[in-house]
């Protein structure tokens, strides 16, 4: 018996040794002047997508290879990066948004870098004057409605106040801002709109029989009409109607859903150079590339968000089916960072208790 165990055991110990050996990175040998031949790591969230060939274009241009490392959703990615500050998982992070931005800045995750490509990015998106992060894309979280459920007798609600109107009682489903990104964005929209009056607004939403789910999936596929539920208004994205067209089966010409423009909150996603990188020059080149037309024009159909650069063209589906609110709700990242836990706690007391 002992001999059998010994053989098996030694084999596995050898295998474990091999695992350890595979895991470590070879040290970088390149000089600081030349970035050609370097490999850098882009840490990002699970929703990150590029078309095949896009990152390869960057490699052809600069000689720098890119490895993409996913780290869960945005919240997980930020939490994981804060835990590993000083010994980061990669060189550049992409995907931290304005709701998590302050937390990342407070933890000093990033090194400042002012990309020359920022000249093409509207100032309204450049939320960090210190340029520790660079805006790459934006999108809006808005109430979506199922078009067929509304007509002359029951017109589509137009404002946040309408959603609390008894005429629309029992129609709305929202996500919990303590567990869902669109849920948090919608809470922030109401705070931006009503200021201190947001608590009363949510009391009236509760009186109007709002349904709360933990996440977007159970709201959209569980309660909303689209997934077979019975609620015709859901908190989703401004890009959800074009997705309903692009991913329709069988194909359709127009989206079955629409967006209530007055309810939108703008989410901006940023990239930043992770503090402690030993590939600073290559990391700068990658941030510049993320703002290039090559990458920016690839963003909409892969991640269903809008490019930050004004020089990037939009795909037809976005031009035809996406309504871009002119004046979406916003809040300063510092306000969000300082108050979000208190706000969501108070929200829980008002809506769920």
């Amino acid at each position, binding site marked *: *018996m*002992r001999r*059998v*165990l*010994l053989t*098996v*055991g*030694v084999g*596995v*110990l050898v295998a*474990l040794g091999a*695992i*350890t050996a*595979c*895991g*470590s*990175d070879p040290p970088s040998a390149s000089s600081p002047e030349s970035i050609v031949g370097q490999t850098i790591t882009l*840490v990002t969230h699970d929703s*990150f*997508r590029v*078309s095949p060939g896009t990152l390869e274009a960057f490699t052809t241009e600069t000689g720098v290879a890119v490895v*993409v*490392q*996913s*780290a869960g*959703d945005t*919240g*997980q990615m930020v*939490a*994981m990066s*804060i*835990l*590993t500050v000083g*010994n980061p*998982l990669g060189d550049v992070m992409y995907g931290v948004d304005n709701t998590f931005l302050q937390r990342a800045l407070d933890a000093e995750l990033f090194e400042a870098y002012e990309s020359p490509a920022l000249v093409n990015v509207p100032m309204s998106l450049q939320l960090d004057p210190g340029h520790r992060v660079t805006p790459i894309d934006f999108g809006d979280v808005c109430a979506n409605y199922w078009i067929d459920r509304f007509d002359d007798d029951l017109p589509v609600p137009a404002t946040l106040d309408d959603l609390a109107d008894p005429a629309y009682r029992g129609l709305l489903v929202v996500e919990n801002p*303590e*567990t869902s990104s669109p849920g948090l964005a919608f809470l922030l929209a109401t705070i931006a709109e009503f200021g201190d009056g947001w608590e009363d607004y949510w009391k009236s939403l509760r009186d109007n029989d709002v349904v*709360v*789910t*933990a*996440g977007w*999936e*159970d709201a959209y*596929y569980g309660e909303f009409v*689209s*997934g*077979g539920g019975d609620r015709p208004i859901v908190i989703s994205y401004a890009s*959800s109607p074009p*997705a309903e067209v692009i*991913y329709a*089966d*069988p194909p359709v010409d127009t989206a079955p*859903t629409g967006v209530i423009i007055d309810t939108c909150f703008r989410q901006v996603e940023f990239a930043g150079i992770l503090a402690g990188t030993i590939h600073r020059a290559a990391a700068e080149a990658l941030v510049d590339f993320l703002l290039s037309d090559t990458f920016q024009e690839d963003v909409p*159909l*892969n991640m*269903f968000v809008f490019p930050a650069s004004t020089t990037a063209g939009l795909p037809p589906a976005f031009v035809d089916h996406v309504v871009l609110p002119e004046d979406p709700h916003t809040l300063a990242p510092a306000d969000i960072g300082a108050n979000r*836990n208190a706000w*969501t706690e108070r929200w829980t007391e008002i809506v*769920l*208790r």
Partner: protein
Amino acid sequence: MVAVLLPAAFLGVFFLYPVAAIVARGLTGEGLDRLVGLPASASFRSVAWFTLWQAVVSTVLTVLVALPGAHLLARYRFRGRAVLRALTTVPFVLPTVVVGSAFAALFDRFGLDDGAFRLQHTVWAVIAAHVFFNVAVVLRTVGAFWEGLDPAVEEQARVLGAGPWRTFWSVTLPRLWPAVAAAASIVFLFCTTSFGVILILGGPTRATLETEIWRHAVWRGDLASATALAVVQLVAVVAMVVVANRLQLRRAIGGRPSARRPQRPTKRLLGANLALLATVLLLPVAVLVERSLAVGDGYSLRHYGALADRVNLLPVSALVALRNSLLFAVVATALALVVGGLASLVVVHGRGSVSRIFDLGLMLPLGVSAVTLGFGMLIALDDPPLDLRTSRWLVPVAHALVGIPFVMRTLVPTLRSIDDRLREAAAVLGASPTRVFREIDLPIAGRAVAVGAAFAFAISLGEFGATSFLPRQPDRMTAPLALFRLLGTPGDLLQGQAMALAVLMMLLTAACVLVIESRGRFGSGVVRGDL
């Protein structure tokens, strides 16, 4: 010696060290104050109480639902038995979102989801889902053990005048107890740490320690509170496992494995059992199959055909993700078998304290939250020679940690039940210790090994939580993560593909479990013939 060192090293490096590192980090500063302040917090007390009672109720119901099926599978032979056994494992690979929507559709169809009888977002939906996910654990681990018990003892009881119930209570159940306790303890840990079921089916107001740890660590950026809760979870899990092991220990009754031909079941017994299993397991699955085939107003295989092409929302096609999952599952199962197998031998043959520590230690990964383990690995395994944070081995290692308890819970009761006289007889007849192991322990335990392997495999294939907390390269995306992404964007096409992928995952699991178990049965067949 290696049998002791290897599992100890594996557990130490990949579990104890990471968890200790994250607990140490979290408790520095405010964390300790949070921990001290917890008992006084009303919201903590209600979360802890809910975590406990829903897990107890879920476990008891799971055992009750599963025992008749375990009896059927253990004592009778009928056509389709192997397939039925393999099918019971498929709930393990189904993501909660998918099961949740299948349940919702079912409630809807039978008119159970209206007004006063609304089930969605109630604690009963949570418990029903826990039974659905875990019934296989009891069915299979108890079934495998039951099969090895000699039915002659029951027959003697019947001859002596005991009725069927009396026989079950006084003769069968006491002998079955080690396996029931082992299975129940796994189910209990699973229900204690379940995540998606609580959030999605329980609704926004229900929270367990597991969901609270996640909410504090990820959403509130409050590592101190998350760690305080993680410490409570860890201590509670240790206490529960100690109690469960006490219940299970030393109750094992040795006996000859049964050498007689099993009976065919009566039509009524088979029918009643199949009806129960079908209601619990197959109805939700049937809903998914139906949805995967629905296109517009008709049915087609179109969604399946589309799985080979990459949707632009995914880094790889769904089929590639499925292949990745398969590879991870093979590696994770192998790791779980080797580490769990060696550890089982230590538990059965080792000295008292070493045996107890192993029995306890290797159960713990089941009861620790995915956030704790994932974050722990992130900060602990970040220096050479253990810079494994971005290693491709981390995912199968994490999966194996969850699979090991299954291998051990099926193996230990069976190994304990092997009559020492069998081994002694073999030794007297001149067999070397190696030969005794190969020809006595291995064949008798073969069925249990196969069941443990099947679970380790299915768990790895369906694992979502721990995987999502480990850094990954997108082209190594697993099938559950791909499925979750597909359901993350509106559109019937994506929903259809997600359902088709779920069905393929189930089919693949059932097929692999069939293969794994046919090997295991070969082993036990040999010993039956020899005896």
